[in-house]
């Protein structure tokens, strides 16, 4: 079957379901296959049928060039039909997992805890070779019943290269000053003892976490008394009575959301390889450390970088500790055993453990420093997974999601003393939460919420009496080495090994959708056949004149992946050229790209904006780029009512067209007030062949009355919505003789219309023709 791209307004073309090339080479567990992949080429030949008892799948490739690996479960990669020409970016959008490092080998290891978990069924593999020369490549898929063991933490002691996170000295790890064994640390030099102590901290932490994917931690020393990053903050400078001990954090963060950018040649493009489809909570930042487990691959394999210089976390210790003028000359205790009391030194392992735990993602990105953004502001407007686990508990015991409330409400929660809590079930039920048997919400773990807010301390630590808070308290006396409740909390930050419960995926509801903050613009989104949808974006140009754009393509994993034309555009401005062959063409310069994402859209900044929206149908984020407007995000909700008594019979909802390209109309049938009603949008060309649209309504859909066509003048897509919205004027009439909703062109449905565009270009469009549904009749949807 040939999948046809919408090159003209296909209220017009006949779309066929996507045909997929059938991958032809079955892989057997543990049996390596070798093959030659041409330069600048892709192979989608391989698949693996996982057995039902598999708990872990390991996909490994190794080539003689920089080969990359994409993996997808359940259905072939979209855009890999036998007549499709492959796009690297489109393949990226279809990949559930990826390993695209700058190395010649790649590895993806997934378990039952991943968002696309290991389960019986077919796994599809794509191998890419970007070198100009062929690559001799081997591929091995191994299925096993192995459960993830302790997290491998690889501490790197010898990389002082600049990484943007401040100075990094590594000579301290090799300090040859002789030392006697101390507290179980058998290192015979200072450098060895330092390394042993860090490795012990990593071991303690690793024992709490399970993952088959190693985490690389870059370990540094620096003069943190004179760090430009801390010099501006007096509280962080070193004195005889205070000193910075260490700093740490995850290296990078990841987000599962459609984002667009303008590529080097100026074309809009989907940032397919910046997306993180393996994260369970969409529209939410995760620290890079747990992301490795969720992605089944190292950070370098996710971002396409060299693996020897890419880290998941960094920790830096202050090399001024021990100086006579710093902290009273107090030195580090490198013992693996706790320091004898009374302690005279600073426990190195406790310090490292606390900081490494933050590095594993135990931190929120909600702003708690008034010198930056407003207190409570989210990073780029997105939730982070730590904050998403927090709730605000009011004096009346009401519980609100910390990320679902306004900045001001978050700021209030941050200074509520006891009203900021952790809602994650694993931590709540943990034996380390001694409030676990209390009634909700008193059983929830308390997060640090002092008044006034303490930058960096608030939110990202636990506190409160009755909780075995352990290491991750903001202020600590002594030198605890137990994670306490933080161990369970880490599970809810992406480290959990609990089996994923896979939700049944359903196709989105065909309907008219709009963003109520962008009233008078909207889309018609209809299902043509199978998972193929079409999207018609009715909107206005800079002058407020009506115009429309068209897209079509499959819905894959809850995302409308609009197909692109040869120019890379997928949101097409159609030009009507009567008398020419073909009668329509694409105005490439005026066209753009679009995606419609139904995955947890309510969490997206576009939807989670405090505006009340209907929840009758799932929301969707429409991400689009047109002209100078790049990466615009709208929150789309269905206009059509739903529920009992709202479905019209017969139901004419859908996209209708004649056999002629370039024009058509969308109808919406519904019942309200006991009557069948019909709303419609006519799409037609003006005198220049540019697409325009007009509205009409009917209270007697099956009676062929002449309906007034109303031309609406509105506001541009990125302009502020004006008070009053839009102005209307009559532009013509349409008479619909609707008998039965069907795609059968022999059925006696007919349209008779005459419309004159009331804009600068003018033009009268007249037709009296048979019509039929392009989309599937609503009864079949």
């Amino acid at each position: 079957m040939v999948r046809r791209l919408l090159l003209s307004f296909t209220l017009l073309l006949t779309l066929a379901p996507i045909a997929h090339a059938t991958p032809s080479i079955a892989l057997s567990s543990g049996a390596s296959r070798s093959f030659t992949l041409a330069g600048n080429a892709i192979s989608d030949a391989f698949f693996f049928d996982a057995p039902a008892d598999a708990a872990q799948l390991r996909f490994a490739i190794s080539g003689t060039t920089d080969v990359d690996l994409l993996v997808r479960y359940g259905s072939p990669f979209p855009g890999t039909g036998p007549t499709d020409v492959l796009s690297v970016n489109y393949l990226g959008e279809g990949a559930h997992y990826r390993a695209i490092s700058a190395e010649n080998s790649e590895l993806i290891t997934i378990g039952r805890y991943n968002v696309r978990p290991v389960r019986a069924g077919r796994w599809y593999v794509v191998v890419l070779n970007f070198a100009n020369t062929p690559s001799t490549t081997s591929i091995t898929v191994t299925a096993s019943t192995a459960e993830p063991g302790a997290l491998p933490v690889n501490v790197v002691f010898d990389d002082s290269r600049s990484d943007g996170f401040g100075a990094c000295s590594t000579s301290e790890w090799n300090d040859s000053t002789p030392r006697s064994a101390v507290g179980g640390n058998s290192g015979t030099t200072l450098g060895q003892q330092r390394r042993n102590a860090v490795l012990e901290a990593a071991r303690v932490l690793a024992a709490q976490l399970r993952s088959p994917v190693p985490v690389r931690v870059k370990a540094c020393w620096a003069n943190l008394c004179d760090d430009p990053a801390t010099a501006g903050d007096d509280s962080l400078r070193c004195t005889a009575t205070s000193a910075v001990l260490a700093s740490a954090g995850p290296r990078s963060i990841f987000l599962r959301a459609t984002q667009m950018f303008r590529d080097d040649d100026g074309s809009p493009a989907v940032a397919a390889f910046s997306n993180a489809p393996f994260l369970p909570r969409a529209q939410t930042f995760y620290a890079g450390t747990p992301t490795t487990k969720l992605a089944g691959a190292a950070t370098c394999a996710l971002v396409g970088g060299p693996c020897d210089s890419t880290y998941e976390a960094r920790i830096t210790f202050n090399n001024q500790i021990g100086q006579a003028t710093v902290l009273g000359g107090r030195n580090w205790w490198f013992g693996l055993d706790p320091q004898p009391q009374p302690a005279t030194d600073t426990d190195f392992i406790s310090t490292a453990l606390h900081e490494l735990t933050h590095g594993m993602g135990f931190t929120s990105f909600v702003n708690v420093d008034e010198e930056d953004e407003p207190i409570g502001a989210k990073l780029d407007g997105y939730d982070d997974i730590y904050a998403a686990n927090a709730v605000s508990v009011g004096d009346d015991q009401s519980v609100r999601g910390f990320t679902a409330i306004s900045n001001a409400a978050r700021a209030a929660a941050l200074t509520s003393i006891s009203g900021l809590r952790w809602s994650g079930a694993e931590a709540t039920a943990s034996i380390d939460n001694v409030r676990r048997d209390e009634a909700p919400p008193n059983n929830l773990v308390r997060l640090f919420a002092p008044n006034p807010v303490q930058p960096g301390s608030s939110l990202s630590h636990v506190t409160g009496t009755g909780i075995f808070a352990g290491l991750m308290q903001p202020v600590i006396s002594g030198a605890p080495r137990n994670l306490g409740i933080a161990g369970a909390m880490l599970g809810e930050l992406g480290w959990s090994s609990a089996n994923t419960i896979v939700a049944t995926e359903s196709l989105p509801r065909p309907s008219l959708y709009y963003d109520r903050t962008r009233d008078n613009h909207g889309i018609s989104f209809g299902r043509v056949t199978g998972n193929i949808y079409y999207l018609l974006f009715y909107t206005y140009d800079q002058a407020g004149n009506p115009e429309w754009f068209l897209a079509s393509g499959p819905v894959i994993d809850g995302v409308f992946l609009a197909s692109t034309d040869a120019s890379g555009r997928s949101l097409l401005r159609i030009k009507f050229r009567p008398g020419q062959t073909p009668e329509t063409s694409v105005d490439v310069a005026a066209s753009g790209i679009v995606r419609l994402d139904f995955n947890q859209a309510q969490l997206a900044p576009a939807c989670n904006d405090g505006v009340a929206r209907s929840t009758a149908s799932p929301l969707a984020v429409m991400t689009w780029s047109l002209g100078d407007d790049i990466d615009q995000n709208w929150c789309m909700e269905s206009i059509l009512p739903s529920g009992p008594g709202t479905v019209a019979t017969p139901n004419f909802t859908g996209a209708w067209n004649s056999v002629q390209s370039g024009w058509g109309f969308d109808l919406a049938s519904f019942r309200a007030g006991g009557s069948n009603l019909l709303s419609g949008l006519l799409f037609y060309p003006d005198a220049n062949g540019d697409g325009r649209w007009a509205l009409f309504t009917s209270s007697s859909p099956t009676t062929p009355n002449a309906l007034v066509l109303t031309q609406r003048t509105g506001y541009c897509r990125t302009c502020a919505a004006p008070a009053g919205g839009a102005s209307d004027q009559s532009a013509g009439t349409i008479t619909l003789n609707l008998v039965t909703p069907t795609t059968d062109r022999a059925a006696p449905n007919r349209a008779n219309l005459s419309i004159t565009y009331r804009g600068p270009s003018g033009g009268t469009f007249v037709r009296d023709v048979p019509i039929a549904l392009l989309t599937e009749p609503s009864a079949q949807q």
Partner: protein
Amino acid sequence: MFKRTGRGGMLLWAVLAAAPAAAGSGEFVQVESRPFVESAAKARALLKNQPQQPAPSLSVLSATIAADGTVTTRCESQSSPAYRAWVEELRDATEQER
């Protein structure tokens, strides 16, 4: 993605028929090598060295000795230098685009 336009030319699939028997490991199989529509440079740019969004903050642990000699540690945070550089880069890119 794109409709194949005909035989021969850039949009046709390339099929590798010959292969070195000794290369790689495991049983050798012949596979179809399919070209992609992006130029090699563009494809590489799409995949390789994606901007790695830095974590916005670092935690900083400091110690304080009280007058009675009690030592406490306190954890705060600061924006990371890498994140500040990232924001600057984004700002520059946006301004350049304008």
